[in-house]
């Protein structure tokens, strides 16, 4: 499977989108070019505010601006939006339910920047915060259409964003819709629920699994909170042999946990198998290496399916659609992170 690669999907799209929205401001914590908003700053210099490397303070400024009717869009790496400034995010922004947009880059283990740059528990932490809306993009179409979705939410929104060279998996005319799962395939043997880059990865294996006669309902999730799209419940109910979740995140507190909650509350007894980081920190290495090391790749998905079915499917690694090679030195990013 090969997809169109969109370079810097956010950069120009965000500029065009913000043109007729004077209330939209950008606050940045010294990662402006890394978050594809350098050109935005140069286009709208009076709406861009450099806050320096001081994320806790940035949260407070965003809160004040939002209280006064502006709509601040904070841009930095995900880890710097919810780890150190968590208290400020909670008390200054989430409690008063302010319209602040947190655009976080480098989700999960996509970066060789190591443990300090890998947001592996952001969804888990943010899911526990009342009033938060949590969105995650899985391709370029979602990276570009998430803006309207976030803008329409009356409260704080966290966006798990992609940058650089991003695949376009979903048609441009099928934009991101709040709290709406995408049904990528249907079938009654297994239900597969994926999010973010795990969807592209899972799609390497799904056709082969189907080729083995397996009926797979595959949902792509882009809204982690709220999480009550009835399509999810229906897909979980239909799974004959089991449910698999796959996420670029810890299995604790993220998509896998959200699915477990829905299953438990609805007495769905199919076995649940969660692919993701198994309660561990990671380290700095290439995305491909880490996805293999931590069992987040298409091969790991095949193995999970085999485990659930209790039989080998005879799918070789070489049968899987080629993994998109990720060039860490791509000129679509300002650094190799």
């Amino acid at each position, binding site marked *: 499977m090969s997809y169109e690669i969109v370079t810097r999907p956010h950069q120009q799209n965000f500029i065009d989108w913000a043109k007729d929205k004077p209330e939209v401001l950008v606050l940045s914590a010294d990662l402006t070019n890394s978050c594809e908003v350098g050109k935005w700053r140069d286009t709208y210099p009076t709406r861009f505010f450099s806050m320096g*490397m*001081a994320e806790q303070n940035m949260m407070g400024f965003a809160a004040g601006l939002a209280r006064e009717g502006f709509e601040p869009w904070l841009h930095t790496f995900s880890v*710097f939006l919810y780890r150190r400034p968590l208290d400020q995010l909670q008390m200054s922004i989430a409690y008063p339910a302010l319209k602040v947009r947190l655009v976080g880059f480098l989700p999960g283990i996509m970066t060789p920047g190591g*443990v300090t740059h890998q947001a592996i528990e952001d969804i888990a932490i943010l899911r526990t915060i009342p009033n938060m809306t949590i969105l995650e993009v899985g391709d370029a179409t979602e990276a570009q259409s998430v803006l309207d979705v976030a803008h329409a939410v009356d409260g704080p929104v966290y966006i798990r964003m992609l940058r650089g060279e991003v695949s376009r998996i979903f048609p441009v005319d099928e934009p991101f819709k709040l709290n709406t799962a995408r049904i990528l395939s249907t079938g009654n043997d297994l239900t597969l629920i994926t999010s973010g880059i795990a969807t592209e990865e899972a799609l390497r294996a799904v056709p082969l699994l189907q080729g083995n006669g397996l009926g797979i309902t595959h949902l792509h999730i882009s809204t982690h909170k709220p999480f009550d799209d009835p399509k999810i419940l229906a897909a979980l109910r239909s799974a004959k042999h089991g449910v698999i979740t796959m996420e670029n995140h810890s299995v604790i507190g993220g998509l896998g946990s959200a699915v477990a909650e829905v299953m438990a509350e609805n007495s769905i007894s199919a076995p649940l198998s969660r692919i993701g980081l198994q309660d561990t920190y990671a380290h*700095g*290495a*290439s995305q491909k290496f880490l996805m293999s090391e931590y069992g987040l790749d298409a091969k790991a998905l095949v193995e999970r399916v085999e485990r659930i079915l209790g039989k080998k499917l005879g799918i070789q690694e070489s049968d899987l659609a080629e993994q998109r090679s990720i060039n860490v030195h791509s*000129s679509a990013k300002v650094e190799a*992170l």
Partner: protein
Amino acid sequence: MGACLFRSISYAAERQLMNSAVADNADLQRMETIAHGIRKRVLSHVLSNNGGYMSQACSAAELLAALYGGVLKLGPVESPIDPPQFMGVPKIGEHTYQTGAQFHGPKGANFDRLIVSPAHYALVVYAALIETGRLREDGLEYFNRDGSTVEMIGAEHSPGFETTTGSLAQALSQAGGIALARKLRGEEGRTWVFMSDGEFQEGQTWEALSAASFHNLSSLRIIVDVNQAQCDGPMETVMAIEPLAERVRSFGWDVSVVDGHSLSEIIAASQSDTAKPHAILCYTDPVRGLPILAERAPTLHYLRFTSTAERAKYEDAYKEMVQ
């Protein structure tokens, strides 16, 4: 352009008269060689990887050469250590995890400790370790390689690191705790923290400065690469931190302001024995030794070549460096 974008250095008034007699000429020459070696190695690496943290080598070469070249009283390393493979993250009950502090030699009551704070300077730190015989000569070949500890952003298993500080401005507080522990044990050795100036934008830095002076941690030292630059460009266009010396001093610290490319000034400042914690602010030039880097101003933080012509220019600069 370039260098002149960076504030014409305002520290002249702050600068103290330095007694360069404290280091003999052989020391200075050795450190100069180390500094030159750091720039050379980092440029060579950047050329072969089409990218890297180059300006940090330009600004901090003398600072690190001075520290590793004799200013720090570190335990000896018998022979250059192999770059270790990554053996897994720290886990409760498993005590196999080894920090990169081994590259600083054995710990001891009379030895100094060095905590590296700006983890993106890792490439420069590794180069310094190689130049001073602590990391194996080919160590940079393991840089950012899958399964290696020679990570792009150093973590506590990476050579020369013993804390995980890629989320910047967390090292000084931890070093404060280490210095406090050493004080409680009556140890003589000093605890040093190498910092970048961008870290003075984070509130935690100022909380740590307060606590260090409040608890009279007189053996705590910070040495800062004040290159007046950060990711988005010159610091005064991103979030000004000046007057830095005055501000740090007002938090109860002794402050020395030095030319960060003058080994003798760094050495002299490092020898001051004060009753307060001591900060050495090294004002540096982010393109020192590689003037063509100034063409990339205002953003110098990460170097990646935009054309083969540009790359060729850096190859020429490298040839000149090795002459």
